[in-house]
């Protein structure tokens, strides 16, 4: 059964490969045409000064209590991939929302092809040729690819009925153009994230978009899917479409971006050519200081076992055994779907344990519910922040104190000052950037949300802290802060399990590393012997 699922996944990825080949061919032929066209233009217009496709000049945006954009400027050339870099809360999303008509700017101007445009709503943005591909994709899940692409502007036959065959034909043509092996009739819900993203891109192009914004497009893609995405990005630039590209992965910039604009605290910092700019320089620009000690880790000598998991099996994992020592950081590496998160959920009592034992200080926990396991001193910071971590409609303080209500609510007596004390402590300790503790958590940036989530678990003063992908989708500054917090906790005797797909993080932070594959443990490495290669060998079946 497992094998079947795996081979299916491989097949799905392989789908994209022929696409990449077609992409190459297409790119080649298209580039030629573009060259010819621009040559013609050149003759026709002798003194063509550099004309930007998009200029955003001195844009200001104020929210109650926050000056989110303080005179930001951005220039985008046609056919350019322009990366937008900055820590969480630097104002990237706000800038993009201003461009996309979701927010209205307070000051400044937007020029497209040198002409001033007014963008006050999404409709106007679309008419101006701006299309945004959001991090959370916004396709209708139970409609087909074709229906999604033509949503709201369905082709009609005489008499007003929908011309399904024309829509499918058009969609097929657009999909072929991008070398996508997708059926126009496929339902969106049946596609994986990468495929959905491609549909979004096709949709944007079908709207004649000339400026496409991609907000962290690679955050949930596999390496192969990322390659395919980049191929398609190049196809877009070949059509003289300008792309604004937001990502936290520095390594991608070298590969895909031409120029990069850095923002910090709502301000414009600099625009650089990617080819001649080092990552260190960009990081320094982003955080406004040199990040010398990105990973903070003082290793301790840990001997005393605290958590002992023996032969643990659930529906998803098989015969997992490991020991966590006091004050240790234990890294869990492996491919996505190797059973790491499932192991943690079993330990935390969220999945039904079939057999095996989980002992904390010799006390049996297997079979207990999450409530009592939490009370016994184990905390689990879940992987999927948005769906499993936060209560978006509630305030920071509600989110922060939910696990420690017992500390300030006795029966019907609420000790407000104690509650405030807890909230303030972790709000300050984790330097959450927000107007106040009564701000809705849903309005914060990802990194700040994560800090609140971690704070809420720290408040319960766990002896064992399980962090599942603690730095996913978080900027470098916040990452570094989170590493420092982990180190501090370990120093104070808290034992940490860190599940992570980022090998540098695993290698730099862990005392020992456990590698999982297909629901079982496939290797254990000590800090002294661990290398990327060794981890990968255990993680994939060679």
């Amino acid at each position, binding site marked *: 059964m497992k094998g079947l699922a795996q081979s299916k996944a491989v097949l799905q990825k392989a789908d994209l490969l022929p696409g990449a080949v077609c992409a190459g061919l297409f790119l080649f032929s298209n580039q030629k045409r573009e060259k010819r066209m621009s040559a013609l233009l050149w003759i026709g217009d002798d003194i063509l000064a550099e004309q930007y496709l998009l200029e955003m000049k001195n844009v200001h945006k104020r929210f*109650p209590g926050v000056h989110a954009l303080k005179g930001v400027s951005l220039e985008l050339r046609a056919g350019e991939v322009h990366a937008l870099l900055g820590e969480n809360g630097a104002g990237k999303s706000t800038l993009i929302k201003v461009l996309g008509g979701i927010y209205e700017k307070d000051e400044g101007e937007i020029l497209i092809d040198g002409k001033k445009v007014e963008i006050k709503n999404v409709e106007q943005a679309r008419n101006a040729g701006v299309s945004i591909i959001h991090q959370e994709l916004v396709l209708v899940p139970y409609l087909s690819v074709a229906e999604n692409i033509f949503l709201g502007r369905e082709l009609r036959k005489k008499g007003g009925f929908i011309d399904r065959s024309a829509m499918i034909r058009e969609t097929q043509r657009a999909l072929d153009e991008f070398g996508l092996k997708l059926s126009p009739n496929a339902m969106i819900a049946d596609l994986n994230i990468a495929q959905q993203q491609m549909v979004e891109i096709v949709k944007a192009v079908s709207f004649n978009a000339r400026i496409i914004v991609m907000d962290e497009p690679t955050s949930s893609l596999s390496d192969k899917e990322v390659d395919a995405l980049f191929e398609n990005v190049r196809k877009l630039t070949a059509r003289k479409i300008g792309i604004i590209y937001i990502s936290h992965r520095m390594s991608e910039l070298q590969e895909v971006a031409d120029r990069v604009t850095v923002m910090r605290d709502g301000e414009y910092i600099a625009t650089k050519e990617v080819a001649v700019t080092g990552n260190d320089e960009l990081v320094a620009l982003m955080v406004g200081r040199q990040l010398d000690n990105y990973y903070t880790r003082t290793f301790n000598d840990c001997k005393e076992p605290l958590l002992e998991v023996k032969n643990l099996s659930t529906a998803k994992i098989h015969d997992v055994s490991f020991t966590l020592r006091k004050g240790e950081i234990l890294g869990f590496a492996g491919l996505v779907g190797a059973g790491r998160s499932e192991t943690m959920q079993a330990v935390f009592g969220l999945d039904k344990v079939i057999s095996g034992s989980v002992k904390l200080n010799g006390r049996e926990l297997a079979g207990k519910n*999450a409530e009592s396991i939490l009370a016994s001193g184990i905390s689990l910071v879940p992987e999927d922040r948005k769906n*499993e*971590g936060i209560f978006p409609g509630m305030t920071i303080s*509600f989110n922060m104190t*939910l696990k420690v*209500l017992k500390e300030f609510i006795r029966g*019907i007596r*609420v000790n*407000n000052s104690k509650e405030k004390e807890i909230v303030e402590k972790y709000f300050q300790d984790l330097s959450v950037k927000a107007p106040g503790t009564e701000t809705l958590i849903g309005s914060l940036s990802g990194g700040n949300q994560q800090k609140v989530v971690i704070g809420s678990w720290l408040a319960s003063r766990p002896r064992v802290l399980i962090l599942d992908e603690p730095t996913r989708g978080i900027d470098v500054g916040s990452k570094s802060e989170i590493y420092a917090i982990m180190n501090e906790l370990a120093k104070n005797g808290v034992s940490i399990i860190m599940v992570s797909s980022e090998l540098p993080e695993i290698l730099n932070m862990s005392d020992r590393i456990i590698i999982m594959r297909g629901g079982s443990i496939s290797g254990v490495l000590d800090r002294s012997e661990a290398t990327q290669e060794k981890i990968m060998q255990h993680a994939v079946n060679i």
Partner: protein
Amino acid sequence: MDNKIIASTKSYFKRNAGILIGLVALCVIISLRSDRFLTQDNIMNVLRQISSNMYLACAMTMILIAGGIDLSVGSIVAITGVTAGTLLNAGVPIPLMLLICIALGAVYGTITGLIITTTTLPPFIVTYSMMQILRGATYVYTGGTTVRVDNRSFINLGTGYAFGFLPLPVIYLLIVFVIVFIVLNKTTLGRHIYAVGGNEKAARFSGISVMKTRMFVYIFSGIMGSLAGLVLCARSYSGNPLAGDGAEMDAIAACVLGGASMAGGYGFVGGTLIGALIIGLLNNGLNLMRIDSYWQIILKGIVILVAVYVDYVKNLKKNKSN
């Protein structure tokens, strides 16, 4: 301490500004059209009338916040009334009868809650089915006829007064209101209710027992259904299988008028009180103004629609400025 009270009063008025203005406007209009409206008799009458709705609406507020809905309460009102009448006529002493009825209410709530938490079927469907089953059972048992009650001391529990002027049902209402207010605002359970409705998965990861929380709100709702049934039975001298028809909708309307979100995670019992008052005043005022009873239904629908819309627009503006 005083500052805190002032602050929370302020935020109460701010949050409910729209609907409070509506309430006042309604009062002004009715009092201009009818001399009888502002008499003590009539005001007590209104309070007594809304109390049954309020028992249900208080419980419904918690259910909506927890991300559920309970359509079965109207049928619980009917079956409780019939049960109460039958037990009294069979000579069961009042305290024991009350206990049995309340316990049965808890049982109905437990069944609903268990089905919802174990099957994860949508609460709308589960409680709709319960509504049909209980209503049907009431008809089957009574054959569609009412069960007459002539036990004076029981009837007094619904028609009597405290301190000579305050109807007893209003006293019960105050008690229920205070309990729900305290649970929602002062207890861990209350926060768990908001958490479960706000993000069920995150609540699970936070070590909150989603099942226990859900069970509590449905059981409480069953008990409130029974309370409403008992009071109605006492006030009307009979257990009527038709009683409480549509009561669940009035309760939901009161909650939504009071700002509760049907999507869960948001709501206030203080708002629900105003919502129930508006619905009660509408019924009373339209009667006093001698408006045809069929027209009353239409007007009620329109007023609720407008009120909720005004509130919705207000929230939309608030969210935009955030």
